[in-house]
């Protein structure tokens, strides 16, 4: 608080910016970041469309049900995201505990009979035909709360102290446990990654950082030793080691994903032309495995474009983080970057057979209303930081 309130004297440039704030808002947005995200969104919409065509390869214009809904989700999410971007991030920050608590309640509710089970995971609340997935929003809430906690050293402190770290730990363990109970191991991993990423870059004591990493390693070891994973989860890991072991059983998803991606070749079969996609050999091909559709129909060119666009997004978000002088906005950007980075890497990695199969979507590309909303909210946070982080507005 101290820094934002007080701080060094204002300079003429800042004065001009304040004067022109209404018109200058757009100019201060990171247009490269926005273009990269829009590129991902457009590709995503096309891929979702291709993935949900009827199997006999009929006229694409006649099966636009999923596409329409996807575009609707995206429209709503864009508006919300832009709204967040245009609001002063300090104002948004004030709502961080609320967002966190709201989603935490949602995570509790999904475990009650109100929750709906989709693909073996109790992660949804269905209200009036709308499916809401609290765990996606929790990523945003967690980032905001962690950023607040890690970025606000008390008087005389220059970095998060043990007290802050312990409180952070409390804040992260609750949603992590709830998500793990659904069970949704993928999202739990992403939440853990967000926490670790933000902690490492928060300036907290190296002992804490090392301790957390050790805890993470210990947790993995414990899972292994005490056999805490469900058999199917163990099989997914075993499949990763040897994808050919059981191609019809545990390795089916992985094997089919590899076939779809590999058969696309350099140029791909062309949009709407993928035989594997038409035959629905890869499960969840419009959500978690949407990257395989890109691999088959758009080939190396299209699939690599997605990887490149995501890399650009991460580069820009991290660049904004680097440019931040204040800890809170920087921590927000770091959190978002860790989130998008870890989730994209795990998702694409599982489509390419280098990561175990977990049910998490590809940011901005996969079908899924709550996920897109959460992605756009995060983008809005980053953009809002970018346009305002000079500390004096």
């Amino acid at each position, binding site marked *: 608080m101290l820094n934002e309130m007080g701080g060094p004297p204002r300079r003429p440039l800042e004065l001009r910016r304040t004067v022109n704030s209404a018109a200058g808002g757009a100019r201060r947005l990171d247009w490269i970041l926005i273009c990269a995200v829009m590129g991902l969104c457009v590709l995503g919409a096309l891929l979702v469309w291709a993935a949900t065509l009827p199997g006999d390869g009929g006229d694409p214009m006649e099966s636009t049900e999923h596409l329409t809904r996807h575009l609707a989700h995206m429209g709503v999410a864009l508006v919300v995201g832009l709204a967040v971007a245009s609001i002063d991030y300090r104002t948004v920050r004030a709502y961080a505990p609320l967002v966190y608590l709201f989603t935490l309640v949602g995570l509790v509710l999904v475990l009650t009979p109100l929750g709906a089970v989709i693909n073996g995971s109790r992660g949804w609340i269905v209200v009036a035909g709308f499916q809401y997935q609290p765990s996606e929003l929790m990523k945003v809430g967690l980032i905001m709360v962690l950023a607040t906690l890690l970025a606000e050293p008390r008087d005389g402190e220059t970095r998060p102290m043990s007290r802050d770290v312990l409180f952070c730990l409390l804040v992260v363990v609750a949603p992590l446990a709830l998500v793990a109970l659904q069970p949704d191991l993928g999202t739990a991993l992403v939440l853990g990654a967000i926490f670790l990423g933000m902690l*490492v870059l928060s*300036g907290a004591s190296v002992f804490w950082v090392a301790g957390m990493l050790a805890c993470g390693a210990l947790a993995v070891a414990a899972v292994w030793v005490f056999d805490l994973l469900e058999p199917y989860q163990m099989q997914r890991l075993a499949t990763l080691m040897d994808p050919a072991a059981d191609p019809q059983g545990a390795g089916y998803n992985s094997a089919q994903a590899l076939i779809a991606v590999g058969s696309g070749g*350099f140029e791909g079969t062309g949009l709407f032309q993928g035989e594997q996609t*038409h035959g629905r050999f890869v499960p969840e091909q419009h959500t978690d495995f949407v990257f395989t559709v890109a691999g088959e129909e758009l080939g190396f060119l299209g699939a690599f474009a997605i990887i490149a666009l995501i890399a650009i997004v991460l580069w820009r978000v991290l660049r904004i983080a680097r440019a931040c002088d204040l800890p809170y906005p920087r921590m927000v950007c770091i959190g978002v970057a860790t989130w998008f980075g870890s989730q994209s890497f795990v998702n694409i990695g599982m489509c390419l057979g280098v990561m175990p199969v977990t049910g998490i979507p590809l940011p901005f590309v996969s079908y899924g209303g709550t996920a897109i909303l959460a992605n756009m909210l995060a983008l809005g946070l980053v953009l809002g930081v970018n346009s305002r982080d000079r500390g004096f507005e």
Partner: protein
Amino acid sequence: MHRPPVDPTLPGPRLGRLGLILVQVVVISLFAALGARLWYLQVPMADYYRELAEANHQQELVVPATRGQILDSSGRAMVNNRTELVVSADYHELQGMDDGGEAVLTELSEVLDEPVEELQQRMRLCGPEVERPCWPGSPYQPVTLAEDVEGPVALQIMERSDDFPGITAQAQALREYPYEDHAGQILGYIQPVTEEELEERDELRSRFTGIDQVGRDGLEATYDNELRGTSGLRTLGVNNHGEVMDVISDEEPVAGRHLITHLDMNIQKVAERALEQGMEQARPENIADSGAAVVMDVKNGGIVGMASLPTYDPTIWEGGVDQETFDEILSEEAGEPLLSRAVQGTYPPGSTFKIASMLAAVEDGASLRSTYACPGSVSLAGQSYENFEGSAQGSVSLRQAIIDSCNTVFYNFGYQMWQKDGGLHPDGEPDETMAETARDLGFGSPTGIDLPYETGGRIPDRDWKRTFWEETREENCERAEKGYPDVDDPSAAAYMKQLAHEHCVEGFEWRANEAINFAIGQGDVLVSPLQLATAYAAVANGGTVYEPRVVRALAEADGSEVEEIEPTVKNELPTDDETLNYLQDALTEVTKSGTGQGAFDDFPQDEISVAGKTGSADAEGRDVSSWFASYAPADDPQYAVAVLVSQGGTGGETAAPIAAEIYKGIYGFESSEDSEDVEQGDPVLPGGTPHEDLPTIREDGSIETLEP
């Protein structure tokens, strides 16, 4: 750009900058790694995955070809294909239903009047854990739920197709035997293909449907490849649920070829009936446990009829045989009806073998113009050999020796030839004239008939004796030392021990008594009824030993092509015409005044003269087996008929009357027996000759039979 001044005491600027650059490097390398992996999958490995993708979304469906029919010489179907109504289910469609098809199967169980559990069991795919009833085929093949369904039931299912999604009722081809229990051993049968057969036969493996059947015996086995045809291959595009989306390619099946055989269904019936009745009459004085009758076309070796008793009803194979019936017909109590006594049974030939002995004697120098002593008994090499019932004829010609079947004449021949070859200790290579002549006639090796599991019989000589001795020496020598402690009777045990000792020490010696018995078709010589018919056919046709053939031609199912199978000559007898004519003349007289006279008393020999020879063969521990080997008409031979009744009495008593009945049937003479199958007096074949033409197979697959 301008930046706000940085407070160096804050953690961000100090720690963050370096950390963030590090993070950017890590991110770039991680995503570069993903890009590299993507490149590896899509560029160098693309072809590999394209192949996998192909296999993924294409499903090959084998469309079985219609199996060829087996026709008799005039085109009558002995085996054809019957269609029956079968109810089957689409495996994937039922699996895809919310309840796994339970509702549909429940509905169906009411219509079929079968418990729903039974239907559900049949829907399961067979596997190591899943025992029958289950579906042994591919899930892409319709799963058979009920066979031989009544028309109205099938109609109900077809009409209410909305109530029975995934269920179809359709016609399916099954093997059928229009003449029921005739010619079972010749026709053979088909059975589901075994693992071993699949491994052995590439053509089965490449187009295997999972429910293929293969010929396991008889013509079905020998001509399996021809009857089978070529299965079609339909390549279907399928999705991940196995639902068919389109037909990518469709290769039509090519129906199997029809077998047009030399068989005549009526002669087959006549032969079977005559054999059965003859055996019936031989009982109860004789055991008459089994028998065979072969009718062969002497001009080409074609098998016109071939009976073997006991037999069985081939209709048991229709729609698959159950294990109980299968075990039953394989059992010894049933008399092993699957076994063809004509092809697979071997017996000592007795006096029918004297054609070989006489030809051998002449070869050895015996004159057709001399006379030979036919005493009641002869003493040779210190042992006495007797004529049948001790009858003596004085001095007789070779002709008379054949007619009256005088053993003593042939004993002398056998002994003389044995002595000439050097007796027990031949000097140099023995001629073995007797054995060689027998082999010339086709004895001692398989005839080469187009039926499986044929045995070659046995022609004993010095070589055979030595081989046999080498094979059994070890056991005999051990017995010679240890005796037979397991035999209760001490004197029997002592005798057996003594015998074992002799066999051990000098078992390789071809002894005089063996050569002497061999000369009258006794001892170690074994022949099959088919071999005997082949040999008599050779005598009849002037010396050509044909390989017997059941199948005369192979015809495409649409009649477009007919491949005739040319007769195969196995051997030409070295005998000169004079000797052969002399022998023919003697055989012709056998049925007039010789040992076959009784059987042919009422046979109009002035119309059709029959030539033949009786045989009554002794075998250790068994009753006398009855033989008659013959051909007719004697002046222009067309058919050779050989009849055997195992333990059926003398040849003239049992076998010769059976042969007479067969000839009566062929030529349409009044039979002494009542007949249901064949009209009295009408010849089975007009003019007593087989059809020259082949039946015509029309383009539409129908068959134009030849009028009798």
